[in-house]
């Protein structure tokens, strides 16, 4: 069938600069660049280009640039080029549209409508370069009260906690969805910075066992790679109910991607589809969730916190309340901008709600019900920088999860083609020739640099507010003001509009 889908990108090659070294030909897993020996020139098959810029970066003479295809359809507000091309693709394949990374549509980004306070004259600001600043964060269930014996020694048993030096963790990405070198980069960065990485639902690769003390291990509906050794390996266990990019649906790692190593880690035969059912079939209610939480606690003899990750959906605050009552040690909420290795495009772009609103509403609900002190709250799915982190903490989060930002630090260019397994940057691929392009020494350095840079910035902003411990910012919504938000949005966020005083 002749395709009506014209290419998304055009490769422009400066013929004067091009030295025919063929680096671009070798670097592109999508086979965009081809060398024509007869004419001694490199030509591009534009239709295969995903816009990942691998060739642009690696070209030694900087001869290549890539532009969006300027070919226009007749102007139409309703029928954008994207809408038309999606229909062409489905008419030609009959398939569900797939994509990678997070929702890229023009929904409001509430982070950018929130402004942070600073001290002026009264309550003087603090200079973090000369004064101590506390970012330490504990994730886990907190006792109702503390009791001491006659000698002042603590006798209350403190439930297991995760101790974070920075309030930022790497969120779940399985080995399978990302490469072993990408996993190792984040695992090593976690060790260096003093935070945690998350195995995702694909099991724990043997090569990553040295970093298990800094791992959160996931237990998802497919139970891939889940056995007692795995549950005991990590520092916490996370029950994955949902993911922001695809709330309510299961996962599906196609058989082609289940090679020898993925097979070993997931403990399934080579070449079979790894199907994660949409629900856990042992969880149809909050009571059932409680049962799994305690089955896991029993399995690890109550030595690790057990958290529950859900996607931000309409009824998120009631669900979070249920999770807190079910005995979870933390709740992780993933917003609708959260990334994925593969999700149906329509679901990614249309299901779920912004995490900023979900977070505010969950924090409010848990406070109203007197549960907030018992349980930790982690949010993810759209955190791009340290200011987003500060705003999340002020809205009520204990810590944040980052994944897209972490992959961008490793070299991801957000081409949104993770699902093809042909990631030229060696991140979302299992092809050994592509995987080796990501050096875990460099990856670990880049990821830890990012966290260190953000913590400096967080300290600067805290100091500016006259706050010297992150704990004092937690849920401190007076430190936020909204701009351009309507009454309802301000009400849900629990903040005042810019210009309103205390």
């Amino acid at each position, binding site marked *: 069938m002749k395709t009506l889908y014209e290419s998304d990108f055009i490769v422009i090659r400066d013929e004067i600069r091009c030295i025919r070294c063929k680096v671009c030909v070798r670097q592109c897993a999508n086979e965009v660049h081809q060398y024509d020996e007869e004419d001694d020139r490199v030509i591009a098959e534009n239709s295969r280009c995903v816009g990942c810029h691998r060739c642009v970066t690696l070209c030694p003479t900087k001869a290549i640039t890539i532009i969006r295809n300027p070919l226009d359809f007749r102007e139409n507000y309703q029928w954008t080029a994207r809408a038309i091309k999606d229909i062409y*693709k*489905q008419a*030609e*394949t*009959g*398939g*569900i*549209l*797939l994509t990678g990374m997070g929702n890229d549509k023009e929904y409001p980004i509430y982070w950018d409508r929130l402004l942070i306070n600073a001290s002026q004259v009264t309550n003087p600001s603090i200079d973090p370069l000369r004064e101590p600043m506390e970012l330490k964060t504990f994730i886990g269930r907190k006792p109702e009260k503390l009791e001491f014996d006659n000698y002042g020694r603590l006798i209350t048993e403190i439930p297991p906690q995760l101790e974070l030096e920075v309030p930022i963790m790497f969120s779940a990405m399985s080995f399978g969805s990302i490469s072993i070198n990408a996993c190792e980069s984040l695992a090593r960065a976690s060790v260096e910075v003093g935070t945690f990485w998350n195995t995702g639902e694909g099991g724990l690769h043997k090569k990553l066992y040295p970093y298990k003390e800094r791992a959160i291990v996931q237990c998802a*509906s*497919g*139970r891939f790679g*889940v*056995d*007692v*050794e795995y*549950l005991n390996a990590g520092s916490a266990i996370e029950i994955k109910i949902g993911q922001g990019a695809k709330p309510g649906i299961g996962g*599906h790692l*196609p*058989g082609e991607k289940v090679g020898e190593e993925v*097979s070993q880690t997931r*403990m*399934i*035969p080579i*070449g*079979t*589809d790894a*199907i994660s*059912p949409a629900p856990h*079939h*042992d969880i149809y209610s909050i009571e059932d969730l409680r*049962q799994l939480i*305690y*089955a*896991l606690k*029993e*399995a*690890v*003899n109550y030595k690790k916190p057990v958290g529950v990750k859900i996607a931000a959906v309409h009824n998120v605050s009631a669900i979070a309340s249920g999770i807190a009552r079910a005995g979870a040690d933390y709740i992780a909420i993933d917003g609708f901008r959260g990334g994925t290795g593969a999700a149906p495009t329509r679901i990614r772009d249309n299901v779920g709600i912004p995490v900023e609103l979900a977070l505010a509403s969950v924090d409010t609900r848990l406070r109203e019900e007197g549960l907030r002190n018992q349980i930790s709250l982690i949010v993810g799915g759209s955190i791009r920088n340290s200011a987003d982190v500060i705003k999340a903490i002020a809205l009520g989060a204990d810590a944040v999860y980052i994944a897209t930002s972490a992959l961008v630090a490793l070299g991801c260019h957000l081409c949104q083609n993770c*699902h*093809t397994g042909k990631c030229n940057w060696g991140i979302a691929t299992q092809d050994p020739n592509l995987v080796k392009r990501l050096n875990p020494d460099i990856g670990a350095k880049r990821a830890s640099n990012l966290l260190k840079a953000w913590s400096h910035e967080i300290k600067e902003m805290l100091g500016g507010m006259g706050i010297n411990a992150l704990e004092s910012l937690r849920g401190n919504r007076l430190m936020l003001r909204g701009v351009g938000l309507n009454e309802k949005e301000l009400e849900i966020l629990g903040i005042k509009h810019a210009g309103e005083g205390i």
Partner: protein
Amino acid sequence: MEKDGRLKTISAKGLHYRQLNEEIRKVLEEGYQQIKIMDVNGQRYIGSGLTFSDRILEIYGTPGNDLGAFMNGLTIRVFGNAQDGTANTMNGGEIVIYGSTGDLVGYGMRGGRVFIRGSAGYRVGIHMKEYEDKIPVIVIGGNTGDFLGEYMAGGRIIVLNLESQGDATGYFCGTGMHGGIIYIRGTVPEHRLGKEVKLTDINEEDIAILKEHLIDFARYFGISLEYLISEKFYKLVPYNKRPYGRLYAY
């Protein structure tokens, strides 16, 4: 260990599951070979996450949900009925139930065997899997409810329907199944099957598999093997390993 071979009896009367399971763990760590637990009345998670391959737990009464969840090696005998979630995500060991069980036996189970003399409820063997030498097995003496072997990716389920109180399985049997085998003594009407599975005759290899497990079933429950295999068996297998392989546009 010096206490090997010794028998210890525990009473579960009035104990919360956490106390009971702590006690069981302690006694196993002390080296007792066989532990009798009397007066069990709904305590959950018995055997959860334990790895004691050569030991035996004998349960008198009715253990609660998630019996043997995440279990990695242990023999559990239940002289009574079990409730829901038996052998949830079990990785190794054996559970023998002299009565019936509730729903959700062997969810995501990867290894070990479960023998049930009576019947089992709904959602049995959902997403059972297998890996290398780990092939989980569930043998059910009676019949089962709906969704038997849904998403099944590996392992063996044998339904004997001995008392023959109607069909061997409920509806949606094997929906989304993409690996493993379900054996049924007698047959199942086509309308009870998921669209991903087909009902076929068994061969010599299947008979060997059946005998391997039915010998033990016969021994545990005092039923003759000849009787068990006197009726014709059929098997349910998936049409292919990739039921959803062509669903997406690339």
